[in-house]
């Protein structure tokens, strides 16, 4: 078991922008690190460099204390689980799991013992003689895991191993992989584009975009304190509402404009954030769960109209657009059915029992305690580094 250290690792394919751009990331021994990001962000390339399947253009990559830039994959002592499992179709489950040990030259009895042990952990004991084609997706996935764990490697590398499974199985396997990783305590780098997997599985999560590391943190800190608009929008489902507003400050008051409406912010934001000067723009971020329905008489509310409603069973996602506060709300409600749905500017997450229909005009409060502020030009958080 070992630590993993990316130090300024860069990968450039031919000419063009780097696929991975000066990635510096440390994975502790036994840590479950998730690399997450949209398609093409470089997360798989980073993992493949770690496995030795891609050459490193520049930078230093260490496994344990050894620099592995020029070490062959077979000598890195890492095990990899692939997206499509990559099981050897002409071998039985037992042969698949024990293949690496056979190549390593372990004795037959040792291989048998370790395969049986891995199969027992993965509940595969009764399928050992089957060929991969006779297994379900979940079982194949477990065989792929078995092939990795049987080697007791220095690190597990997993490249979107759950993306070929159906939703229910994915949840089960998510827990299963996390359980096995905790059980074995091996440093794991797990690549996914699914932020739910990232949030639920990782000890820490590294968010990548265009080959660059955006933020690495614990899932909760990533959610609560995103360093930029991209991370704020990427982590969380549905994503954070990001609205460009104008700041107005003066007389111990600080306000932001939401279209024609205004919200007053708690004064402490001026000390915790580097808010722009009055009259300049800022991007305000509000999580959907922090958009609260209230009555019109409450302070700091904005008037919105329900444009769409998505009932997910345990919760309802309500897509809201701003309305002109000077217009009679009933006019919006009456024309609800005739109107073509307009572009929503806010998404709110509400309880399943809330009675809401499309066209309703609602007063909502944007929980001011949980607002995020980002620079309108760079997208970087305006929060001061106090943590």
């Amino acid at each position, binding site marked *: 078991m070992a630590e993993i250290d990316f130090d300024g690792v860069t990968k450039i394919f031919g000419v063009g922008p780097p696929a991975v751009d000066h990635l510096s990331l440390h994975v502790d021994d036994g840590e479950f690190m998730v690399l997450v990001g949209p398609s093409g962000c470089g997360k798989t390339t980073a993992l493949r460099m770690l*496995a*030795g*399947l891609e050459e490193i253009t520049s930078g230093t990559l260490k496994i344990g204390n050894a620099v592995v830039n020029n070490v062959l*994959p*077979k000598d890195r002592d*890492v*095990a*990899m689980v*692939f*997206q*499509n499992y*990559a099981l*050897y*179709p*002409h071998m039985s489950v037992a042969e698949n799991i024990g*293949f*690496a040990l056979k*190549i*390593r030259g372990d004795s037959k009895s040792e291989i048998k013992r370790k395969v049986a042990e891995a199969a027992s952990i993965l509940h595969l004991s009764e399928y050992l003689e089957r060929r991969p084609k006779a297994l379900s997706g979940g079982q194949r996935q477990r065989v792929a895991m078995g*092939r990795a764990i049987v*080697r007791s490697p220095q690190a597990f590398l997993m490249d979107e191993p759950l993306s070929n499974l159906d939703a229910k199985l994915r949840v089960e396997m998510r827990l299963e992989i996390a359980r096995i990783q905790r059980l074995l305590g091996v440093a794991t780098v797990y690549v996914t584009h699914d932020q739910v997997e990232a949030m639920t599985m990782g000890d820490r999560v590294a968010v990548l975009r265009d080959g660059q590391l955006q933020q690495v943190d614990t899932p909760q800190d990533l959610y609560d304190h995103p360093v930029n608009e991209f991370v704020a929008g990427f982590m969380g489902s549905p994503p954070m509402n990001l609205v460009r507003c104008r700041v107005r400050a003066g007389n111990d008051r600080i306000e932001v404009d939401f279209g024609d409406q205004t919200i007053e912010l708690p004064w402490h934001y001026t000390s915790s954030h580097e808010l722009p000067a009055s009259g300049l723009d800022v991007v305000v971020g509000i999580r959907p769960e922090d958009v609260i329905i209230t009555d019109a008489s409450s302070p700091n509310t904005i008037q919105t109209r329900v444009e769409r409603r998505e009932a997910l069973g345990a919760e309802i996602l309500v897509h809201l657009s701003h309305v002109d506060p000077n217009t009679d709300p009933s006019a919006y409600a009456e024309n609800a059915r005739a109107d073509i749905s307009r572009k929503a500017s806010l998404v709110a997450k509400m309880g399943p029992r809330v009675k809401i229909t499309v066209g309703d005009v609602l007063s909502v409060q944007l929980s001011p305690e949980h607002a995020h502020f980002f620079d309108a030009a760079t997208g970087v958080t305006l929060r001061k580094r106090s943590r």
Partner: protein
Amino acid sequence: MTTLITPPQESDDREAPTPPSRNTRAKVGRWALFFAMVVIAVVMLYPFWVMIITSLKSEAQFLSGGGFSWLSWKHLSATIPVGQEVLSSTIVCSASILIILVVGLPAGFAFAKLRFRTSTAVFLVIVSAMMVPLQAILMPEFVNVTKLGLTGGYFGAILVYAALGTPFSVFLFTTYFRGVPDELIEAGIVDGLGYFGALWRLVVPIAIPAIATVTVLQFIQIWDDLLVGLLFIQNTSERPITVGLAVLAAGRTTSIPELMAGSFISALPAMIVYLGFQRYLVKGLTMGIDR
């Protein structure tokens, strides 16, 4: 879409004729196809039938048209060393196919899975050799092999057959290996294999249809070839069966039943190999269609 439903009790002669249903059309189509296939099968099998029947006659019976005799089979082995010639053909075929596979498998793997700067250009050059007819390069080949002193025994012919068959095998294996997921090979490499290990232990076992296809097609081609054997194997004790048959046919008095018996012996191995590998052959030739 309109569906015509005709109740059984109303379908008598007085009814206006209705267009044939889809079912009937399908049945007619199937029968037509069956009939066409029977005709094609008869056309294909007739020469075999003639060959077998003719070989089971004496010279006199062949000229008179009736009768049955093993005489031509008995005379055949006295006229030409059939056993030795079949053995020679087998040696030349096996060795050539072995070289074709040993060269074609790693080359196909390299072209399909290992990216290198000029791989596409080199691949095209090799594959374009498939389009050069044997006759066009026969003389230069002969001069080269003669200079190497290899025109006596098997070796020269084996090299020429291997050189002629390798481009096709490289093409077929490259196409086949392109369909093998990269991740399978990468999994093997992470598990501790090198590229040759991955080829031998992971790719070859799943490339049996492609290997069978190359083997069968090359076997038929080499086994049936006369020209290369005639030119490059000059020791009479090592000549293949096709050369033996040619000698038989070129004799002053050619016995047609003997020639047919020899031809049957010559055709038999190719037929056995084809029938034995037929299942893989179809799989190998149609690979890529369902992707």
